[in-house]
């Protein structure tokens, strides 16, 4: 089943085209990495899929159907710098994760034991159960990012969309987060779409690489891309042109 199917999608900001004729499909169980230079429209593409922006050009089908409204429960979203903003907010990890159970709890209703259990399970999945009562401001950047991941996972999403989840996070935390995502993708079948500039580390885990460049989207052969990357590390100067082509990796 196609989790996301994008057909001939185009988008402009104030008459300035960002991209056009973008088409791709994400199947259940895919681990898709979206790369591209800054300003290429990666976050805009995510916002269109999430329904935050609308475009008159093209079609987006989610979970095999374009007629029903966006399935909010079925998509978990981790925004760019989501963990770094509001670091001084007086809230515990548990309270933050619980907030995303809004639809399950219901408008004007209060959380029950089953909801607290879901929060605990979600924190366990990301290895943060021991931090449930801690304040978000007391955690490191990597730990906060895991909390935000737990918040995205608590509603049992079929699709997880992550917008540069590793920005501002140290290398060990980055690797541990990618391993965690890979495990969830492999064992729990959660489809992952991730925007990242950290191509060196993610390629080991990703199944597909989509690249937005010069207003259009191309799918890159993963093996060819890895070769090009390793060539870059051996010959940084000669590979500058390649780096320009695929964004800042």
């Amino acid at each position: 089943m196609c989790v996301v199917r994008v057909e001939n999608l185009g988008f402009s900001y104030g008459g300035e085209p960002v991209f056009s004729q973008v088409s791709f499909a994400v199947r259940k169980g895919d681990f898709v990495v979206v790369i591209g230079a800054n300003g290429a429209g990666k976050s805009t593409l995510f916002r269109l899929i999430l329904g935050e922006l609308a475009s008159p050009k093209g079609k987006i089908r989610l979970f095999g159907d374009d007629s029903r409204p966006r399935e909010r429960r079925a998509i978990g979203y981790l925004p760019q710098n989501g963990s770094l903003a509001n670091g001084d907010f007086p809230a515990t990890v548990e309270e933050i994760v619980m907030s995303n159970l809004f639809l399950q709890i219901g408008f004007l209703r209060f959380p029950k034991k089953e909801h607290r259990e879901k929060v605990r399970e979600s924190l366990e999945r990301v290895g943060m159960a021991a931090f449930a009562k801690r304040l978000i401001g007391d955690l490191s950047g990597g730990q906060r990012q895991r909390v935000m991941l737990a918040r995205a996972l608590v509603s049992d999403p079929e699709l997880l969309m992550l917008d540069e989840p590793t920005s501002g996070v140290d290398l060990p935390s980055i690797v541990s987060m990618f391993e965690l995502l890979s495990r969830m993708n492999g064992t729990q079948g959660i489809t992952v779409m991730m925007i990242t500039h950290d191509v060196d580390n993610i390629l080991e885990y990703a199944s597909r690489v989509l690249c937005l460049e010069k207003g259009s989207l191309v799918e890159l052969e993963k093996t060819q891309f890895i070769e090009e990357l390793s060539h870059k590390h051996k010959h940084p100067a000669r590979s500058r042109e390649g780096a320009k082509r695929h964004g800042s990796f």
Partner: protein
Amino acid sequence: MALFEYEFMRRAFIVGLLLAVIIPCIGVVVVLKRLTMIGDALSHSSLAGVAAGLVMGVNPILGAGVTCVVAALGIETIRKKMPQYSDIAIAVVLSSSIGMAGVLSGFVKNAANFNSFLFGSIVAFSDFEMTLVVCVSFAVMLAFVLLYKELFFIAFDERAARLAGVPVGMVNNIFTVLTAITVSIASRTVGVLIVSSMMVIPVACAMQLRASYKRTVIYSVCFAVAFTAAGLYVSYYARLKPGGTIVLLGVACLILILSAKKLLKF
């Protein structure tokens, strides 16, 4: 205690303590949404409403309520159009309210009555005003409890709340009206120049204790209740203005907490 022998002091305590419960509930969300100046803008717009009420022969608190709600919705509308510059919305409403209050105050015959709204008059409450405060306080408390998780989510991350399906626009509008109503009834008691401090200082004290959101709300209410009770007590025996005394006690407590934190390094 001798001060409870007087009917006006018993009323002052009931009204003061009810307000001490609802003002910080609103204040927590206002502070965390980084809209602390909204209290100032609304209290000044309530002053314009008070002046309009006195000029037209309508109950000034009702006048304050109407102008506060209009001003609050105006701020929310401008904030939506310029989300990056929400302080502009507050500045526009604040200056236009002061302008309107200034112009209308020239037509108010009983200047003493108008001036009593500047610093509040917690001990001179009519039966109607007393009933109004009690009803509004319970309505605000109920709304805050029912919207507790929605307000938390929006204050923490408005965008994520919208994506999760929270009716952000509706909740923000309800909260805006609650804020406006609270400010308008509080301006009669603690005064328009002080109400925003009552909204911010107990929350600032509670935030120094570094607790969860739930505890921050509870601590804010406890601080506000303590400041109000102590303020009324001190003002009765020292013959001071109650509104100003309550706020000054709050500021003194905040300074004490900040100093203690620095000394004890917690």
